[in-house]
């Protein structure tokens, strides 16, 4: 027996699959966004509002991984968006292979933005590249403004941070400035959007960012 030194990341084979998928999606004109958060942070609610607000401007699809049932997928489909449900068999994150399989369920034609609603936790999804072009994470007010200190990798990896449920501000001791500052210490380039999907406050800034990132990607 011979010893072979590897020093290989466990995620290496996945990283390669993800890179291939990312390039293929460019050819299919699908802009894929990996949406990550703890369970109940408001992913489905944010997506629902975004789909309604952007109706007529861009075709949106949602791949639901974070589900106990198909309730979320039905909610999305009722809004007229393409909805795919993926079965994760108890896994704690989506990887590139599972994402590819999910996307194959999408009819092939037409330019669009597809959101992957990842499984609700902040640890595992941060480590696995799904092949998405952008990563967006959600932090909801009730989770506390010190979350960046607890889950630094997720904040470092994300292109945007959406802080949801800001309509609940009177009930929680959440310091928006502190949360944004902590996120920026970990990731100076992160875009931060405080929103309420309930009242609509802040939604426009988030949607404008989304559209402009999509257009930049398409035109690149």
């Amino acid at each position, binding site marked *: 027996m011979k010893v072979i030194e590897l020093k290989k990341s466990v995620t290496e084979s996945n990283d390669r699959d993800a890179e291939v998928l990312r390039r293929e999606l460019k050819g299919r004109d699908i802009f894929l966004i990996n949406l990550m958060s703890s369970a109940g942070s408001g992913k489905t609610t944010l997506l629902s509002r975004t789909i309604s607000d952007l109706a007529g401007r861009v075709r949106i699809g949602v791949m639901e991984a974070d589900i106990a049932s198909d309730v979320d997928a039905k909610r999305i489909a009722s809004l007229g968006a393409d909805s795919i449900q993926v079965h994760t068999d108890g896994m704690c994150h989506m990887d590139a292979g599972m994402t590819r399989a999910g996307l194959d369920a999408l009819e092939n034609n037409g330019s669009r933005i597809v959101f992957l609603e990842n499984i609700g936790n902040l*640890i595992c999804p941060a480590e696995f590249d799904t092949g998405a072009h952008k990563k967006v994470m959600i932090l909801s007010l009730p989770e506390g403004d010190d979350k960046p200190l607890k889950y630094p990798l997720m904040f470092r990896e994300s292109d945007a941070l959406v802080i949801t449920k800001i309509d609940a501000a009177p009930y929680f001791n959440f310091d928006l400035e502190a949360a944004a500052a902590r996120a920026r210490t970990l990731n100076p380039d992160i875009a931060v959007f405080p929103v309420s999907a309930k009242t609509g406050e802040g939604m426009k800034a988030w949607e404008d960012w989304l559209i402009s990132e999509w257009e930049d990607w398409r035109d690149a």
Partner: protein
Amino acid sequence: MHELGIVQHVIRTLGDVAEENGVKRIGSVTLEVGEVSGVVIEQLVDCWNYFRERDPLVAGAELLVETIPAVTFCTACKGEYETVRYGKTCPLCGSPETYLLRGNEFSIKQIEAELFSDGEESAEEGQTGETSTGGK
């Protein structure tokens, strides 16, 4: 479960490694796991013992785990301290503005492997009468 997915990824990565290096069979795999990587080592070993029997490349291979201690960095005083002992509040200056520096890793450090060429070499060695030097 996190460990289930991780073991599947490890085995796939080992498959790639085997192809690149002409590995016939793997005898042991050494992982480096950060103290706060969130991986439960007992579960990892259970998943490993289950999955290894489904792939001839790693059938019977032993899983060895080396733990990397977790270290936290304090943005206030720029100090470093043991994460597990002190948590997120810096013991040097009391600041809560800290983040993890190390201890989150998860990588495959090395493998012990039998190569396809091992057999050929020993056959050649046998023919030329040389004494074997490498390997176990």
